[in-house]
């Protein structure tokens, strides 16, 4: 019988990244090529073998230019997944689907951006105009009031979550403190050697109440790329194969992009619930089978409901989990061991997938013992995605 699942059919076999900084000093195209060539070298696969590409919005480096510069000849699959950070895990899923179905034997997944030095997502000025295309009409409910930053949109959910479950700004702070602790011992992290205390978190200035500065991730320049091929071929390559055990995207009822304020309840992330159920279904795994996780942390408050959607804790109880330090170094489920986007860099989630790869390979700088399976999630508050990666 034909195996129709993507689980276990493809593996991440190469990993490349540039340094992470506030000003790369070179083009996004160059960053993408540096990361891609390093990933192919890491895999031991010749660039001419690449048959597919996937990235996600708003990557401005087109796959055809990468293909041209790599010298690719038979590119049969390419996709760019919408919804920014929410898409972060989806290119790996798409690549696994392309490999599992035989459309493309080798796929490069990449994300390159000068998000700090060339443009910034949190500027509050996005050039929305009044022509009646959907996006303008939709953001027309928010922009005229000056309700125009991701921090503000997340803050609206966070305030209600705090009110409903009794979580506090300090609970959000504990997420940041743990991330910065991991970053402090990660030489690749922007905040290497710079841990923070909970007091420093509380004293940091308001960005948008209830979010302090230290609830918000960095903005960064950099690129990450990886190479995906079949599980069979992965066994013969030089790196420990990192098997793609499950991948899913998620949209559910009442879905909007950052502004799903009209659902009966706004304290959860039900689209992440869709992803969670599908990841567990495909992989046959449950929360108890995951030794570590990369939980998307553009803003600390959304880490809590993600822990709930994936069943690590019951609804509303993530705060206790975090107060007990289970998310931190030495905890039951250390998360974001690279330092997260709060501590390492904001490469739109792709650097988190890279950390999951290193955890499975056993080469992470803050390595968790006996890692068999790692969960990775993508951006929250938007149509989203997730992965479970593991040992073969």
């Amino acid at each position: 019988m034909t195996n129709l699942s993507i689980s276990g059919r493809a593996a991440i076999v190469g990993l490349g990244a540039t340094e992470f900084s506030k000003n790369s000093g070179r083009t996004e195209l160059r960053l993408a090529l540096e990361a891609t060539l390093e990933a192919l070298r890491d895999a031991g696969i010749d660039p001419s073998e690449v048959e597919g590409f996937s990235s996600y919005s708003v990557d401005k480096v087109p796959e055809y230019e990468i293909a041209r510069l790599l010298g690719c000849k038979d590119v049969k699959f390419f996709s760019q997944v919408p919804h920014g950070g929410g898409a972060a895990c989806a290119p790996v899923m798409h690549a696994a689907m392309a490999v599992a179905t035989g459309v493309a034997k080798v796929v490069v997944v990449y994300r390159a951006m000068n998000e700090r030095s060339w443009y910034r997502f949190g500027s509050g000025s996005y050039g929305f105009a009044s022509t009646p295309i959907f996006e303008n009409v939709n953001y027309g409910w928010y922009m005229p009031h000056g309700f125009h930053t991701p921090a503000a949109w997340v803050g609206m959910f966070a305030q209600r979550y705090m009110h409903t479950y009794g979580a506090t700004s300090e609970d959000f702070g504990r997420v940041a403190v743990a991330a910065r602790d991991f970053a402090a011992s990660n030489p690749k992290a922007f905040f290497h050697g710079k841990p923070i205390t909970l007091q420093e978190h509380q004293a940091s200035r308001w960005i948008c109440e209830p979010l302090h500065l230290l609830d918000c991730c960095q903005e960064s320049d950099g690129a990450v790329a990886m190479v995906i091929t079949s599980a069979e071929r992965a066994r013969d390559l030089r790196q420990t194969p990192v098997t793609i055990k499950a991948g899913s995207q998620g949209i559910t009822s009442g879905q909007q992009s950052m502004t799903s304020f009209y659902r009966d309840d706004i304290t959860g992330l039900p689209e992440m619930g869709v992803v969670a159920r599908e990841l567990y279904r495909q992989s046959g795994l449950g929360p108890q089978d995951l030794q570590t996780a990369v939980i998307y942390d553009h803003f600390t408050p959304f880490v809590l409901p993600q822990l709930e959607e994936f069943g690590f804790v019951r609804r509303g109880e993530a705060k206790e989990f975090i107060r007990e330090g289970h998310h931190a170094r030495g905890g039951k489920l250390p998360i974001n061991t690279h330092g997260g986007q709060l501590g390492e860099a904001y490469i739109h989630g792709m650097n988190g997938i890279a950390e999951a790869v290193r955890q499975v390979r056993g080469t992470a700088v803050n390595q968790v013992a006996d890692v068999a399976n790692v969960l990775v999630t993508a951006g929250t508050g938007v149509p989203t995605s997730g992965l479970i990666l593991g040992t073969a």
Partner: protein
Amino acid sequence: MADPQLLSSVRTLVGRQYGRVYAWDAVNAPMIRQWCEIMGVDNPLYTDAAYAADGPHGGLVAPPAMLQVWTMEGLHANNYPPGSTDQNPYEVLKLIEEYGYASVVAVNSELSFTRPVYLGERLYYTTRLESVGDEKTTGLGTGFFVTLVMSHFVEKPEGDEPVGELLFRVFKFRPASARTAAQAPIENEPAKAKRPLPGVSDDTRFFWEGCAEGKLLIQRCSACATLRHPPAPVCTHCHSFEWDSVQASGRGSLYSFVVMHYPEVAPFDHPNPIGLIELEEGVRLIAGLTGVQRDGLRIGQQLQVEFQTFDEQLALPLFRPVGE
């Protein structure tokens, strides 16, 4: 971002002392009497010699708030008594201005007094550039808070005596409307920033037209009467494309909120409180909050809509807390 060259030049000036500016006249009764008349001060300690003789100072003293008056230049600009410095304690403002921060506004003037000033005493002051803050953005614009301290003394053969200080703080800035034009050259004075206009479609036009008439309208499915916001072309409940609208009472409760501080984007005021309001009809909408106290917001509080027109073209619903 402030120019590093500017920051460096400013830093070298901070702490600088500027020379003396002398008073034209010794402290004298006629000027005190005229000042008291003009200011409406009728305290006899300043004007009634007999009364003052029995008072706490044993004679007439000048009103403390007159401290600055004694050393003023008079009718003609920069006409200071002989011996006064020709240094300009405001040179830092000229320096900052050269980098495009053309506007200035006084923000603090604080007098403090060491002792009374007596008839016959002669004053002078010196100025110190106390501080220049980091570049800040306020509702007015982006610039620097510059603080000067003028220390006033009375000349005495045995050593001059301090009598009081004036702390004077100004904000030297590039106006907010200029700032939003990003890197546009200053000489091309950009238009004042306006609130972004919403995209208006066939599905949503009724809402904005309602706002212009001071009405808060909610879309209603003609088939199943389900209310919905934001408006859409089709009912999420029964998928009917037929709809009309009903006027909301405008009463609602605060379902959630944020207070926006950063980045400060013109033309919005900061902090900028924004609410997710649950209307009593059952639907929610996002709107600015008005008339709210700092730290006075709480989920569940009652609100009432009001309409405000911005830039003579955009009518928006805003919500104000009401008594319960």
